[in-house]
């Protein structure tokens, strides 16, 4: 009973954090009038659970050598990551209003040299996962406890390098690596099914030797449960989580609409979006 209570409190708290993430990322994209809301919104529950619960990090010491790493391989959804970093205190919250502005630490795609808390610069799709593999190998060889989490877009798995990285993770038994696929089924031009069908992602990941889980990527109970399950990974395998999500989640007029992949809301749309997120009942 007591544990359930703790769990309910955690879920409530993460729900609040997710709401704050969504509001913050929309605020920065609206202020910049540029950015990628769709995939940021679809990844919000996952990023919230990582940054407000699962990751062992020290915002006051972003380069702490024993920290868990987070690689945003789908670098274009950095507004959701910047929001998490801002809310965790990696930099002053007001910095969000400088997104994509000249001289800002919040570049259009993540820049590890400018922004505290960014473990690797990304933005060119297909490449982040390889860097996560390198970090995980270093951790194992050095006998470190840290884990490496990598968020990959589902469209991004069309890049061959993703599969090169996965086979390496499998070969080196990187049980300290967690690959999360944001499976929102929409990419830049259209749905993945139209642009380039992804096939059975779960079967493909299993075939590449990953301990694969499929969850609802907006269900905080499922997300926290799968993280609980893999925390002490004794499978000897790298972990994959296919998170079934909805692009634009949380803003009714953005949900499942391809156009919101990389388009900023105008003032009226922004006001509606913020009201919807604020008024979200659950």
């Amino acid at each position: 009973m007591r544990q359930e209570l703790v769990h309910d409190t955690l879920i409530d708290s993460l729900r609040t954090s997710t709401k704050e993430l969504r509001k913050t990322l929309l605020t920065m994209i609206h202020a910049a009038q540029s950015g990628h809301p769709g995939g940021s919104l679809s990844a919000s529950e996952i990023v919230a659970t990582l940054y407000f619960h699962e990751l062992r990090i020290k915002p006051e010491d972003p380069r702490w050598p024993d920290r868990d790493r987070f690689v945003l391989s789908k670098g274009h959804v950095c507004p959701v990551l910047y929001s998490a970093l801002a809310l965790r205190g990696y930099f002053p919250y007001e910095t969000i209003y400088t997104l994509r502005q000249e001289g800002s630490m919040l570049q259009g795609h993540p820049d590890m040299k400018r922004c505290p808390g960014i473990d690797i610069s990304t933005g060119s799709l297909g490449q982040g996962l390889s860097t996560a593999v390198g970090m995980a190998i270093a951790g194992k060889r050095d006998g470190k406890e840290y884990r490496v989490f990598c968020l990959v877009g589902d469209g991004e798995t069309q890049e061959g390098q993703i599969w090169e990285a996965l086979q390496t993770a499998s070969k080196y038994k990187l049980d300290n690596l967690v690959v999360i696929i944001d499976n929102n089924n929409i990419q830049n031009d259209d749905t993945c099914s139209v642009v380039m069908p992804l096939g059975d992602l779960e079967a493909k990941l299993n075939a590449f030797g990953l301990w694969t889980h499929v969850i609802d990527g907006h269900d905080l109970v499922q997300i926290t449960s799968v993280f609980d399950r893999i925390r002490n990974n004794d499978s000897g395998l790298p972990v994959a989580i296919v998170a079934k999500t909805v692009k634009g989640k949380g803003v009714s007029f953005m949900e499942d609409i391809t156009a919101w992949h990389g388009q900023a809301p105008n003032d009226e749309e922004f006001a509606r979006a913020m009201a919807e997120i604020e008024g979200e009942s659950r």
Partner: protein
Amino acid sequence: MSNTQGRATRDAYGEAILELGKDDSRIYVIDCDIGRSCKTVEFARQLPQQHINVGIAEQNACGVAAGLATCGKIPFVTTYAVFGSMRMLEQIRQEVCYPHLNVKIACSHGGLTPANDGASHQGIEDMGLLRTLANMTVVAPADFASTKALVKAAAAYDGPVYLRFTRDAVPFIYDDQDEFEIGKAVLHSEGTDLTIISTGAVLDLCRRAAALLEERSISVRLVDMHTIKPIDRAAVLSAIATTKGIITVEDHTIINGLGSAVAEIVSEIGTVRMRRIGVQDQFGESAPYERLLEKNGITVDGIVKAAQELLG
């Protein structure tokens, strides 16, 4: 100094990387299934904890190296020049140069030297492509001893470096006591008529051409520009100031390599004329190395002829 003996500079890399790895556990080798050709087999055998073989997957190799570098390692991605400069070029740009990570790209089979392998394996564009990337340093040592020294200099330097080696034996020119600094050219002779600037293993051809020219009373300033980026600007300015013409020689396309790098400075500063000797904007083929060089005019005679034209 020079003699008929020599060794491939890829062998020097194999020796240097093993010595480095034994001294410093941060040194890693990332192989792409051509460790046997690139001379990292002993490293893999003796230092398995510092060795990774990602298989035939160069793009991934580059990313893995970048990730290792963020954790304090000094990874050497080891492959052929064609793959190290082209298959993973954008990965180098995004994950190594842009974040200025401490990754080295160490490539055998630079230039036309994998002669009988044919055009697919002859990396004749590599240095020019890498030179275009911000934050990148590009080094092509001339012989065995300078390769060992420059590999060690690259390991000591904190940042991206592209290193180019030969598959085939090249004559010994330097000895173990000679010192090399990245970005600092080696002046072989102080001439007043003509400067020959060389990069990589063609230095031997340049030395022989210089000797012939001296016999004809042409005073040659000979420069080994082992680092084409950052280029030793002072060495080029001295050549402009002290001689009447500059010939650049490289086993690389004349587009965007050493010749272009020197010409960029000459066009801004100088009044001297230039000739660029190198691969003539064409692919190679399977043939003896000397034949391939001949077809592009990268020969002692070619250098001498260019000198006479230039001073004519």
